[in-house]
């Protein structure tokens, strides 16, 4: 995901803004990282360039 995507994303639980933690990136996008809710602290993973913003109870796939 490009960093500008952060302008339109929010925590699905409380609609608060998210803080980006980059683990791996290339010239134009974030490949691995975490999005952390600035309100409730819930962590959403970014894997292979795709942020997973499903609420925790809907994430059936392993997030490793």
């Amino acid at each position, binding site marked *: 995901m490009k960093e500008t995507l952060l302008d*339109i994303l929010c925590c*699905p639980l409380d*609609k608060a803004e998210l803080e980006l933690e980059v683990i791996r990136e290339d010239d134009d996008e974030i490949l691995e990282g975490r999005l952390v809710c600035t309100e409730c602290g819930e962590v959403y993973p970014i894997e292979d*360039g*795709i*942020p997973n913003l499903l*609420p925790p109870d*809907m994430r059936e796939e392993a997030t490793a």
Partner: protein
Amino acid sequence: MKLAEQRGMATVYEPAEDSRLLATAAIDRIDGGRVLEVGVGSGYVADRIAAETPADVVGCDINPEACRRTRSAGIEAVRSDLTHAFLADSFDAVVFNPPYLPTPPEEEWDDPLEYALSGGEDGRRVIRPFLSDLGRVLRPSGRAYLLVSTLTDVDAVVELADEAGLGAEAVDEASFPFERLVVLEITHANR
């Protein structure tokens, strides 16, 4: 491994007449800004909007395989449940070809493709929560394009939009042997 993968079945809805009707209707009316395709699936509609309009396109889907395909097509992908992971007033246009086939509970089976087709008993299972959150993410002058079928009861969908404070009007349609497909243009009702 999921059952669908073992059987080598498709796990993402492939573009069909409904996708093409929706893409054409959206392209004719979108002139830029930021666009979200909900339930982006194979990425076909999002890709056409990105190629044929100046809009910035984002696709979201609950299905991880659909997200991967969309990203491979060069479209920004977000795994989310409908519009719930997007901030208020984010989009100039939202496009959605929802799962709409009315499906009795005893015929529901649990795999990603079924999820992409079935609209529950009345065909409106997914349309209902979509319409109730749409007004939040749509900018004041924003417009949404929703594909509905006569099998899903177009008037009932217009009524659901009205209950959510939105106005809906048919802007395009196509007839097929067992159904008529309609593209509804949805706006904030006070416009």
